[in-house]
């Protein structure tokens, strides 16, 4: 503890040159927009250790040309934490984190159109006694509701500067910078609401007990231990396990001294906030019909609401499937061209092969995701910023609750039908850690675009072209989509029931007012996602690409044709090796090579089968005619056909469930911060795939297909 104090006081001494401001506020208060407006690209994003809570630190230049440091703390409703996000806010403000200095000053952002609830958190923060600036954001929305806030009076009562703002249009930003540039930001004069004597006495005892073990600092204010005692975060993030016993004891003490103390304190605080609002807020008896009411009349309407939801989602799918295709083709062509150029300019050899087929293919395989990631995150940014995202969650919540998830899981699961990689990155919008993890685990079961070429090939090989109408093929495809979605819902239900028991966190969803999106902030956020993906997932994908290239290239067979070379490589040997295991599924060792190599990415199966069967490899995936013909002729040594309709069906079922995508695994590793969950995912998906494919083939054989 003494070390922490030393480091924070060192910062305090040095702050005449570079003070550290903390940005705090409720979710949806426009905090991140203000942070982005102040710092622009001068910001760094990292994770707090052990959790996926983001730590954002940025810099801005004061009116006097001095550098100011700003830390954007996670949005929270209360210092009584219920999630790692809120625990980070609490611990940074209390100076309890060794990796983050205690801020010297606080910028508290409140939604002016939602004053009472936002002031609740503010009063908790004011009591900590740090110099504070209060920002009343979204003044335009408050004005739309005909609310009048007496800014001067509020500033007088609290004893701190109060700045009206409309962050998405930049109004009030200069005034905030001026206030931040002052050398003497005042300490608030706010007094805690009166606490019943029984609670006060017990809190005082708790403070001493917790200070003794170093859970709070020796000079902690009376309310500080409270925020540890009323920690409701199931993981107790940020609290040393050695302190937990002492904290639980204090909790029991309070419970004994004053049953219902926690709720009593909330009531007392709201009473104080209400009387403050009576002084400074003038509002009409009944709130008039606002823009939000009018828009919700459409977007949440039982008929129009669902139609508009389908239209919005249709647009998203159009963007992700069609618009992304152009840039993806360009990226493919670019890397293809680069590979071709190297092929022409380097002498034949392993190094050239490594560069062309390992490195360039690997890097290309990473970059190819960028158009979809950018589109999805731009879209999500727009929907979050305008407030529409909460409406999607509202409409879909009932449906998702049947499998134990909530409405916020809907969008990631839907977008995983395009690609699981951006979908898993998008699960950050789900606050409940359990729901988020389950969504991550089940998302890759949805039919992503990489499965489509595999399915098209297998469907074509299953049904003969001449006799079967197109409708049957479409029916097959729809059936596969349905299979994928059933997998998503079944496993979500299963994980919710069995693997991750424990209390479901309640679904409490704020429905923010609609507002104009802040484009700059959205683009910054999108850029941040892209760089994080490239840095964290990209490296893993590249590494695995090289590994798979190595396995299918070595050992070399001199003078062999490509198909013989592949058959003798490590991958080919592995195909032979796993043949006993996959024979009950109806597969031979050549299919085994396809399964192994498509671990990199599902669509690789098509190309690999092309090499295995020594078919002229066609770059155009749509042109699968020759491979299909070849598949039909493929025989077992005893003359039976390998690709019977039943084997194709078994393969389709296998691909529907198997975790054949290292990019997804890399992203899951990054988003869950451990290898435990990607490995679990690999295990459960691949074993399900194996068992179901086995079932299909064996039952089908018994039935005589």
């Amino acid at each position, binding site marked *: 503890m003494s070390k922490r104090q030393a480091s924070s006081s060192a910062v305090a001494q040095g702050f005449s040159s570079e003070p550290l401001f903390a940005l705090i506020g409720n979710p949806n208060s426009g905090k991140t927009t203000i942070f982005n407006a102040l710092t622009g690209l001068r910001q760094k994003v990292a994770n707090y250790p052990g959790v996926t809570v983001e730590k954002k630190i940025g810099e801005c230049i004061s009116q006097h040309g001095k550098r100011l440091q700003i830390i954007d703390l996670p949005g929270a409703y209360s210092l009584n934490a219920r999630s790692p996000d809120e625990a980070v806010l609490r611990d940074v403000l209390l100076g309890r984190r060794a990796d983050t200095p205690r801020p010297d000053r606080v910028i508290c952002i409140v*939604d002016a159109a939602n004053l*009472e609830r936002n002031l*609740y958190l503010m009063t908790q923060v004011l009591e900590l006694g740090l110099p504070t600036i209060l920002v009343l954001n979204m003044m335009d929305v408050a004005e739309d509701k005909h609310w009048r806030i007496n800014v001067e009076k509020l500033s007088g009562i609290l004893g701190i500067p109060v700045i009206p703002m409309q962050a998405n249009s930049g109004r009030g930003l200069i005034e905030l910078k001026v206030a931040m540039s002052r050398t003497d930001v005042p300490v608030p004069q706010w007094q805690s609401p009166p606490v019943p004597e029984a609670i006060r006495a017990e809190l005082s005892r708790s403070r001493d007990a917790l200070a003794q073990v170093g859970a709070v600092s020796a000079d902690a204010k009376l309310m500080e231990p409270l925020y540890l005692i009323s920690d409701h975060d199931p993981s107790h993030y940020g609290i040393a396990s050695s302190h937990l016993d002492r904290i639980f004891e204090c909790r029991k003490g309070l419970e004994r001294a004053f049953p219902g103390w926690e709720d009593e304190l909330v009531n007392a605080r*709201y009473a104080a906030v209400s009387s403050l609002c009576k002084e400074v807020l003038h509002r009409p008896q009944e*709130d008039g019909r606002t823009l939000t009411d009018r828009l919700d009349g459409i977007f949440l309407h039982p008929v129009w609401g669902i139609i508009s939801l389908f239209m919005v989602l249709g647009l998203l799918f159009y963007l992700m499937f069609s618009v992304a295709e152009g840039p993806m083709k360009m990226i493919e062509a670019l890397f293809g061209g680069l590979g071709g150029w190297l092929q022409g300019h380097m002498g034949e050899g392993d190094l050239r092969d490594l560069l062309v087929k390992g490195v360039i293919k690997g890097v290309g395989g990473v970059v190819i995701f960028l158009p979809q990631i950018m589109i999805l995150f731009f879209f999500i940014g727009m929907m979050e910023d305008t407030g529409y995202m909460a409406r999607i969650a509202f409409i879909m919540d009932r449906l998702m609750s049947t499998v134990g998830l909530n409405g916020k899981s809907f969008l990631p699961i839907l977008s995983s039908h395009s690609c699981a990689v951006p979908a898993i990155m998008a699960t950050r919008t789900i606050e409940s850690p359990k729901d988020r993890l389950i969504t991550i685990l089940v998302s890759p079961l949805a039919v992503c675009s990489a499965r489509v070429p595999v399915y098209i090939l297998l469907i074509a090989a299953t049904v003969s072209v001449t006799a079967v109408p197109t409708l049957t093929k479409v029916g097959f495809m729809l059936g596969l989509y349905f299979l994928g979605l059933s997998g998503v819902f079944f496993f979500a239900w299963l994980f919710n029931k069995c693997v991750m028991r424990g209390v479901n966190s309640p679904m409490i969803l704020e*429905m923010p007012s609609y507002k104009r999106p802040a484009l700059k902030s959205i683009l910054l956020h999108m850029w941040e996602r892209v760089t994080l993906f490239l840095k964290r997932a990209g490296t893993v994908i590249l590494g695995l690409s090289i590994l798979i290239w190595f396995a299918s290239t070595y050992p070399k067979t001199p003078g062999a044709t490509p198909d013989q070379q592949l058959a003798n490589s490590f991958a080919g040997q592995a195909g032979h090796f796993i043949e006993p295991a996959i024979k009950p599924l109806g597969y031979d060792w050549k299919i085994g090579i396809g399964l192994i190599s498509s671990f990199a990415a599902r669509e690789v199966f098509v190309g690999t089968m092309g090499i295995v069967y020594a078919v002229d490899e066609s770059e155009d995936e749509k042109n699968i005619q020759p491979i299909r013909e070849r598949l039909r002729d493929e025989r077992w040594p005893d003359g039976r056909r390998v690709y019977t309709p039943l084997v194709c069906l078994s393969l389709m079922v296998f691909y529907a469930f198997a975790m054949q995508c290292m990019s997804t695994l890399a992203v899951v590793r990054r988003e869950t911060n451990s290898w435990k969950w990607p490995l679990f995912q690999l295990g459960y998906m691949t074993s399900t795939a194996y068992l179901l494919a086995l079932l299909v083939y064996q039952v089908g054989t018994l039935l005589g297909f």
Partner: protein
Amino acid sequence: MVAPLKLSELPAGQSGVISHIPTGRSALTRLREMGLVPGTRVTIIRRAPLGEPIEISVHGSRLAMRNHEAAFIELAAAP
């Protein structure tokens, strides 16, 4: 004695004043922290198309919750 009206039973468009919320339950404490303290007026704005969740207005802010939580919140008639 008439059983008290629960927030989950209130029809859309109607208001009530919170008369009682059980103490000591984590989820309900969070609802209190979001402004649902006894004595506060709440209005049901709408129900989602499938009957759940419900959207309420409290202190001018809008919150959605499921019937499960709303069933704990008891109301008196709005003044």
